[in-house]
């Protein structure tokens, strides 16, 4: 047996089932892109341990084995490609009431456009299932809210939350390049200052530090506000790069360059607090 020497992700890999809830998943698997996405999501959810995919065609003809599986399940999840809801109708005719019904097109995914699956679309449906978006509305009213479903840290796209994400190479704030470290300290200071003010008006503020691999140096020293880059929020700001000796040390690449920004005729290798604060307010539509 070969010893594993580098980390691997469980994307698509088998994992242990999560929690004690036994879920059975029926996908319409229709002859459209949305239908195929429904099936892809059911497969992915099964691999992730959320539940077990089952045969919708078997449910349509009420085979004894499918009846047993439904009886043994705590929850029934139906994934339909479109609002016609074939899988839901099949379940209802079999006397099965779904606990959750997810409609792929309700998540902003087009029904047609070929049969090739887009991983991001499948992931969106998988996330919706995990988040319980297919539960009845009255049930969801009492459920925690949040999350945009895009897999980012954007704080749900709402203006009642601000997520400030600082990206850098190096292990942490003490072990990154000098300019990134200064930017990181400035981001933390600004977050601390604006948090007190914004939380008084019901806006939660979170700071997220994203440690990048060394080969992502082009992304290092960047800041995002609810998923939007600083330079997109401050009009007239341009991104550039300049030689960085400490990045050269960290990456082992001679002549390594690190991100900097230009604004109002000035070049900033570490981002000044006032520009960070301005971008934060703009992200919330407050400036």
């Amino acid at each position, binding site marked *: 047996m070969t010893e594993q020497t580098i980390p691997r992700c469980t994307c698509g890999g088998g994992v242990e089932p999560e929690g004690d809830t036994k879920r059975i998943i029926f996908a319409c698997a229709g002859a459209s892109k949305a239908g195929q996405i429904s099936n892809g999501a059911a497969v992915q959810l099964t691999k*992730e341990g959320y539940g077990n995919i089952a045969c919708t065609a078997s449910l349509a003809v009420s085979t004894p084995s499918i009846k047993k599986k439904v009886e043994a399940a705590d929850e029934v999840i139906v994934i339909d490609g479109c609002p016609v809801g074939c899988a839901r109708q099949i379940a209802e005719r079999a006397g099965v009431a779904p606990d959750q019904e997810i409609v792929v097109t309700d998540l902003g995914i087009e029904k047609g456009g070929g049969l090739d699956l887009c991983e991001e679309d499948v992931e969106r449906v998988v996330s919706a299932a995990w988040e319980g978006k297919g539960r009845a509305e009255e049930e969801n009213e009492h459920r925690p809210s949040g999350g945009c479903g895009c897999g980012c840290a954007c704080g749900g796209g709402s203006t009642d939350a601000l997520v400030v994400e600082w990206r850098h190479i190096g*292990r942490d704030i003490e072990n990154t390049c000098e300019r990134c470290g200064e930017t990181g300290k400035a981001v933390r200071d600004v977050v601390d200052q604006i948090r007190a003010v914004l939380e008084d008006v019901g806006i939660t503020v979170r700071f997220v530090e994203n440690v990048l691999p*060394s080969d992502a140096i082009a992304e290092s020293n960047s800041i995002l506000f609810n998923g939007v880059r600083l330079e997109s929020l401050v009009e007239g700001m341009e991104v550039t790069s300049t030689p960085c000796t400490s990045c050269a040390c960290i990456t082992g690449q001679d002549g390594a360059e690190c991100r900097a920004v230009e604004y109002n005729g000035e070049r900033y290798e570490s981002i000044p607090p006032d520009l960070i604060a301005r971008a934060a307010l703009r992200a919330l539509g407050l400036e």
Partner: protein
Amino acid sequence: MVLVEVFGTGCAKCGRMIKNVEIAVRELKIDAEIRKIESLDAMIERGVMLTPALYVDGEPKVVGHVPCVEDIKQILLGEK
């Protein structure tokens, strides 16, 4: 302050982990610092061989799958 570290290579699955952590921290209103770690070197250094992984105050809590928001809340509250 609680240090919440999410180890992942930046794929959609790892993205869902960080999003769920964000939601859990926000809804619990706890003082937490969330750190996303995409560096393979940092993962190896910490002994993380399967991602996504969730560490709280340096302790591994979840490895290899994405916990739901409620599970993360229980972890952050020390109930799991």
